[in-house]
């Protein structure tokens, strides 16, 4: 427990000193909300029960933040430390790998949670965004999505050879994930084949899940998205556990 606490503390400090990562985790999501709010406002859109553009977009931005954490932040931090030999130095101490992971997950989740809180606060207070769903439901959906994308990140770290490959692979995955998430361009206007492919996009399902919870839709209506996101969590964790090398 002492090792976990000390390590989480040091990793958190390191995360805060990495100004680029802080920008992407905290400032960028809130900044996107501000940009979006000023660009489109949150005036009710007629066909959607008094909901505005930002009401729709807030949960999508939240899901996007989680995906970015998994695609870039998690593998960059882990592989950067592996490349430098820091993990190897940890390996010759009594520190258990599970303790390291627990501390790393804590910090990554904490960072995502702060980013999320900031995003919803700016959206709600700055532009009057409202969902109508229960807070507990939003938190549950956010926790599941965040955990799934973290697992995705650890799986990437397990499969990639070093930190230098992370931006390349991350971007190659990020662009189609974003494009086919339904949050940037409406999927309805896309050809049938593209829509089929999009069904496999975990980001699409995370957006659906978070938006559903935010709007207070019944969980039964979100079952397929819950299944895909939970599947990503299980598959990612399994790949990471089976394939990750500490040195």
């Amino acid at each position, binding site marked *: 427990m*002492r090792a976990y606490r000390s390590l989480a503390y040091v990793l958190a400090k390191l995360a805060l000193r990495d100004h680029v990562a802080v920008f992407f985790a905290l400032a960028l999501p809130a900044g996107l909300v501000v940009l979006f709010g000023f660009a489109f406002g949150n005036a009710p859109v007629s066909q959607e029960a008094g909901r505005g553009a930002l009401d729709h977009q807030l949960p999508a931005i939240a899901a996007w933040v989680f995906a970015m954490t998994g695609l870039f932040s998690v593998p960059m931090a882990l592989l950067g430390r592996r490349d430098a030999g*820091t993990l190897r130095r940890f390996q010759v101490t009594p520190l258990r790998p599970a303790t390291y992971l627990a501390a790393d997950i804590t910090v990554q989740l904490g960072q995502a949670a702060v980013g999320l809180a900031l995003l919803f606060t700016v959206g709600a207070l700055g532009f009057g965004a409202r969902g109508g769903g229960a807070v507990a439901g939003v938190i549950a959906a956010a926790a599941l999505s965040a955990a799934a994308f973290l697992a995705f990140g650890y799986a990437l770290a397990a499969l990639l050879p070093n930190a230098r490959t992370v931006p390349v692979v991350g971007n190659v995955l990020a662009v189609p994930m974003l494009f086919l998430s339904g949050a940037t361009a409406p999927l309805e206007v896309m050809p049938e084949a593209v829509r089929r492919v999009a069904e496999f996009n975990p980001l699409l399902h995370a957006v659906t899940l978070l938006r559903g919870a935010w709007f207070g839709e019944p969980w039964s209506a979100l079952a397929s998205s819950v299944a895909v996101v939970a599947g990503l969590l299980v598959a990612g964790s399994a790949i990471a556990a089976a394939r990750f090398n500490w040195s």
Partner: protein
Amino acid sequence: MSRRLVHAIAPPTGSPRGEVFGIVGPNGAGKTTVLECMSGLRRPDAGAVRVLGLDPQADRYAVRERIGVQLQAAALPDALRVGEPVTLFAAFYPRTGDPMEALRRVGLEERRAARVAALSGGQRQRLFIALALVHEPEVVLLDELTTRLDPQARRDAWALVREIRERGATVILTTHFMEEAERLCDRVAIIDRGRVVALDSVGRLIASLGEERRVVFTYEDAIDGTSLRGLPGVVRVERPTLEDVFLARTGGAPSVGDAPAT
């Protein structure tokens, strides 16, 4: 690694405590491999490894609680401040002393708020020694501790190694500087292509080449080497080296002062 090497290296851990045991040999001889096997990072292809009577694979955490390791290729995040990793590593061990005491021992107490990135090569190695000492280990493994250090920093590192031995720990170090092995080690194993080709005390290893004694002394006036060489039994007369000049001009102690009497 060959079975023979693993077996032959085993004795030092059972040796009386407070020893500096050197592993020397050309690049690729297997020096680092031995230390990796001892710290449980690598599984030997054959043979048995015991550290403090324990198997570094099966009892890895029990072994790691009692050994301190400095690795050749290991770096800390540049953004850390010097004191932070020491406190962090102290938290990894069930019993530890004062982390600041470990920093003081390596002479970095005043640099504890500095960024790791701002340390010189010698200071960085000393920080890694502090990390290896923070839990008062019984066995300390040092892998090419002084390879990239300047002569003065190397002398400082030697002083630290001696201090570790004075406190009763066994130090097992690899080096490819014969001078370092000669001055620092009580016993030395010479390995070549994965095999131990010699293992003994420094004095006996040197003596094994022939009945030769080395006498080191300083003198004030110039002495003609030839007159010494003419004395009965004198085989060779050595003069100060460029390294001695470097140390004298850059503030180090004269290297002749700590040569082993053999």
